[in-house]
């Protein structure tokens, strides 16, 4: 009988979801796009991925030694390294890829207090660091397989693009961004397991399509809009980076606001900006505004608000 009366303090029910299990699923979901990138760009892409992942984990390990608290077990460094590699062109020198990883983990994440405290997506922070520091290296998309411009650059120049190639991913670009199909497979995995939902990616893509349709100069022309959607890092950014738990708003209203903001900013960068791409800048800009978005969308507590309180 004594066994029936167990007295303990809450919580009594624990979720099986942990940081490790979420990160593990994200890694699984990234593999299709990553694998396609390696198939598309050749073995060097694999080496770039390995360099960023290993240097990201190693940086986190060293910082853990210094702080006397190891955090590489939560797998987040692997996700950061993987995401960064997918945002790099295959021709990037290995030292630059490693430098991007070190910056992402050390400066963007660890110095601000580690996972959960970083104010912007580490992988995107690393990418933007490299993009500003080495613009020539980061926009060199010429490989043995592809000598032309990226579809997005071609689109900006007013050239025709092959939509089927863009959907499958047989185009120039960064390692992980080219194949819309592979990214969507990964996104489906995350959606099925409930890791992400469609609030942010949905609002992001819809707002973006509306913006480009209105201001893009081509009207609601289906091939043009599809090319804009499938080109560049939009899909990768919408499903894998804008949905980052740490750097998205936690309020529901804030998430819609965040998605809409990203859509508009990406549209502005792509339509009016000097470059062809703007997803990464849009997302890190959005990351910086997240605290404000949360502040204006705090839901009312139950029993508060309504007419009786509106004095």
């Amino acid at each position, binding site marked *: 009988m004594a066994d029936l009366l167990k007295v303990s303090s809450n919580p009594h029910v624990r979720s099986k979801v942990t940081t490790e299990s979420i990160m593990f699923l994200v890694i699984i979901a990234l593999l299709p796009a990553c694998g396609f990138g390696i198939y598309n760009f050749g073995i060097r892409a694999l080496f770039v991925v390995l360099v960023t992942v290993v240097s990201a984990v190693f940086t986190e390990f060293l910082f853990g030694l210094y702080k006397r608290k190891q955090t590489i077990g939560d797998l987040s460094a692997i996700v950061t390294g993987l995401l960064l590699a997918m945002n790099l062109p295959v021709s990037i020198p290995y030292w*630059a890829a490693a*430098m991007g990883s070190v910056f992402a983990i050390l*400066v963007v994440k660890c110095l601000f207090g580690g996972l959960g405290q970083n104010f912007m997506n580490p992988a995107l922070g690393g990418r933007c*660091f490299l993009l*500003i*520091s*080495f*613009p020539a*290296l980061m926009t060199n998309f010429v490989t043995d397989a592809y000598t032309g411009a990226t579809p997005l650059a071609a689109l900006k120049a007013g050239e025709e693009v092959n939509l089927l190639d863009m959907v499958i991913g047989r185009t120039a670009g960064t390692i992980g961004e080219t194949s819309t199909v592979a990214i969507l497979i990964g996104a489906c995995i995350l959606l099925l397991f409930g890791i992400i939902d469609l609030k942010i990616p949905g609002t992001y893509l819809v707002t973006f399509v509306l913006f480009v349709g209105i201001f893009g100069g081509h009207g609601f022309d289906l091939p043009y809009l599809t090319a804009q959607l499938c080109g560049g890092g939009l899909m990768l950014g919408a499903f894998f980076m804008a949905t980052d738990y740490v750097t998205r708003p936690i309020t529901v209203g804030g998430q819609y606001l965040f998605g809409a903001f990203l859509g508009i900013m990406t549209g502005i960068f792509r339509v009016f900006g000097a470059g062809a791409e703007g997803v990464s800048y849009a997302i890190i800009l959005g990351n910086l505004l997240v605290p404000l978005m949360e502040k204006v969308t705090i839901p009312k507590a139950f029993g508060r608000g309504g007419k009786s309180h509106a004095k």
Partner: protein
Amino acid sequence: MKENSAIERLYNGIVKENPTFVLLLGMCPTLAVTTSAINGLGMGLTTAVVLTLSNVMISLLRKIIPNGVRIPAFIVVIASFVTIVQLLLEAYLPFLNEALGVYIPLIVVNCIILGRAEAYAYSHGPVSSLFDGLGMGLGFSVALTAIGAVREILGAGTLFNMAIMPKSYQPIGIFVLAPGAFFVLACLAAAQNYVKRKLAAKGKDVSKIGSGCGHDCLNCSEGACTERTAALKEEDK
């Protein structure tokens, strides 16, 4: 070291209360013009000259300037010296004038200068004010040159326009842009804090001594500052 002696003032300005790394004053020129070591040095020395001269002048005038209008009076003195220095730079060092641009006239509103006038020169004699200005000015120059040097080495591979990095070095462009200034300032400030902590652990005194506090800050609620507040209240009555 005796407080307010020449050596103590210099040491205080350069090390103990370095305006950039310890007091974090004058951040605008610090972040904006330190794209290269020579720019940092030029800005630092220009500010040092203005700071020293204005400190002496304000110290000499401290008995005449009425309390109520002391800030406008400081600004007039500082602005006069900035104008002189700017004209001299235009005449004799045009390349530096070009590189620093609008930041020369902006020295007028540099808070280090106004801060030293208010916190030190207004309540101390001209000689110690002179060395206070020199120390703070040199501290500012050292800090700006250091930041400029690091940014120039990393961002352009040169130091004082001489190539010092191997040919294979790929300059990291971000360091000559605005974000690089923040990175370098943060790292250098952290480094000097680290060194100071080590020194303090060895028993050397590197603490801020709040020197320059002539017990005269109107709004300072620290115990030592009550003297002046009390005197002012007396005046009001």
